[in-house]
């Protein structure tokens, strides 16, 4: 029963990793670039939700919506400021890493100057109710997180596989030039990708804020790293791989804490990463955005 409880907790943690990693995968799938400020978008999402609770007296759902909209806008701004100019001058693979690291630093300092460097949390009306099922327990927060993140994963799947915009995204991921020849406005697709990816990242920030009630300007750094790890475990640019990779990492981390030591939690995820790189460098599920269709 302890194991089952651990797995429930792990799935909850993993589903937030998955949301962040889906964002990474979408951006990598379309642009072939790493977005080193994605963790900071995640952090900003948590703060936007906090503000909406403070000033609009928002409930959890409205807080998530505010964070999603705010982060989508932020993501588009990041694309225009830090990615498009670099891409237009064909800065290669490294220049976007520099500019996005810059954006990450900037967002961290802005958040520190507004909210202070200490951890803050959601007000007490967000305290969870606990439901008991025999010896298992699930909190209302956990249920909300699971419902939101799995609902979003389903939406992402439907968006990519069923809509015109998802098709355009897959086409650009497959080949920018050919997609352009076929009349797809690839710049618009990139903007859309940043909006969707950043909205998902921001929502993950709110969910993590609900679950651990530890919101700080520096909460994004480890998410930047873990999101990259999850994306690589799942296969670069593979959205479905990112979903599964996130869940695997979440469960693995919770089990490490439960059965080994909490301080080894992070080492395990990176060991998993190196193992995957050595044994199956293309990731557990190879293929890009187009995989599975």
């Amino acid at each position, binding site marked *: 029963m302890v194991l089952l409880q651990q797995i429930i907790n792990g799935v909850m943690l993993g589903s937030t990793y998955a949301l962040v990693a889906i964002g990474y995968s979408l951006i*990598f799938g379309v642009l*072939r670039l*790493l977005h*080193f400020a994605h963790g900071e978008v995640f952090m900003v999402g948590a703060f936007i939700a906090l503000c909406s609770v403070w000033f609009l007296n928002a409930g959890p759902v409205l807080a998530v919506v505010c964070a999603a909209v705010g982060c989508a806008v932020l993501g588009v701004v990041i694309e225009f*400021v*830090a990615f498009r*100019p*670099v891409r237009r*001058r*064909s*800065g*290669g*693979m*490294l*220049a*976007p*890493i*520099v*500019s996005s*690291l*810059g*954006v*990450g*630093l*900037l967002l*961290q*300092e*802005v958040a*520190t*100057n507004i909210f202070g460097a200490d951890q803050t949390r959601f007000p007490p009306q967000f305290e969870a109710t606990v439901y008991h099922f025999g010896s298992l327990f699930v909190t209302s927060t956990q249920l909300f997180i699971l419902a939101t993140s799995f609902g979003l994963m389903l939406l992402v799947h439907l968006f990519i596989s069923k809509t015109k915009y998802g098709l355009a995204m897959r086409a650009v991921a497959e080949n920018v030039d050919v997609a352009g020849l076929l009349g797809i406005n690839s710049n618009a697709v990139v903007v859309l990708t940043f909006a969707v990816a950043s909205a998902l990242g921001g929502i993950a920030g709110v969910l993590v804020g609900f679950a651990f009630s530890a919101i700080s300007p520096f909460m994004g*750094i480890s998410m*930047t*790293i873990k999101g*990259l*790890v999850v994306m*690589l475990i799942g296969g*670069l640019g593979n959205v479905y791989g990112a979903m599964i990779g996130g869940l695997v990492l979440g469960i693995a981390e919770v089990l490490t804490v439960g059965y080994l*030591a909490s*301080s*080894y939690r*992070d*080492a395990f995820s*990176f*060991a998993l*990463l*190196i193992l995957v*790189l*050595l044994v199956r*460098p293309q990731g557990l599920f190879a293929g890009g955005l187009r995989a599975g269709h």
Partner: protein
Amino acid sequence: MLSSYQESIAIFLGVNVLMAFSVYVPTSAGLISLGQAGFMAIGAYASAYLTSRFTAFDVPFGLALFLGGAAAGIVGVLVAAPAVRIRGIYLIIATLGFGEIVRVLFVNFEPLGGASGLSGIQPLTTLSWVVAICLFFFVFLWRLRSTPLGRAFVAIHEDETAAEAMGINLFRTKLMAFGGGAFIAGIAGGLYAHFALFIDPSQFGFSKSAEAFLFVILGGSVNPLGPVAGAIVVTLLPEFLRFLQDWRMSFFAVLLIACAVWRPGGLISYRRAAHP
């Protein structure tokens, strides 16, 4: 002469120049690392252990630095052996993961202080040590460019397949580049430890690796002047920006974005920077 404040800035600058060299060496062979802080930590802990805990023998500082660098270099070669077949983005994420693993291992390794760190390190790092070592590596790396090994690095950087066709042993050359970079990072770690006098694993996190990476990408990697320029700009700029107070990192961040847009090959680069 220098005030103690200026001297400490100069020592930090020297350590940063060495960290920049440690990224420059693998980068010149086309291997991008975002995990050099891991090697720095190994050098720092190894040399600090030798000088402050290993009291049975009176280990001289120079030897301790060298052994710290050697420990980092050996780990570098061991890590690189399987990693050389990984390229580009995969290598970046793998080295990032390596850096974090080293950090977490030190957090869990109680004989070296674990998470609470290692204190009571002797203040052995002086400005002359730092200047001498930086000059040595600068001259060494400058001369290296016209040796067969240095040319092999450049060849691999430009085109791996062509380099291999020219008879360059890819595996061995990449190991040299990665191990060499790790060795320099280990030396930098040793100098840092004997100046900071207290080290803990959190000092060698991702931000340290990212900083070292930025020195080289900002400065440029066509010759050792680039990393030096990058390290000088990144280390000294925040000092000159003190009047901006809480916003100085923001200014720096904007500068990073501007450099990425207008000088993607680095401050010191060819007019048409050939980059992967």
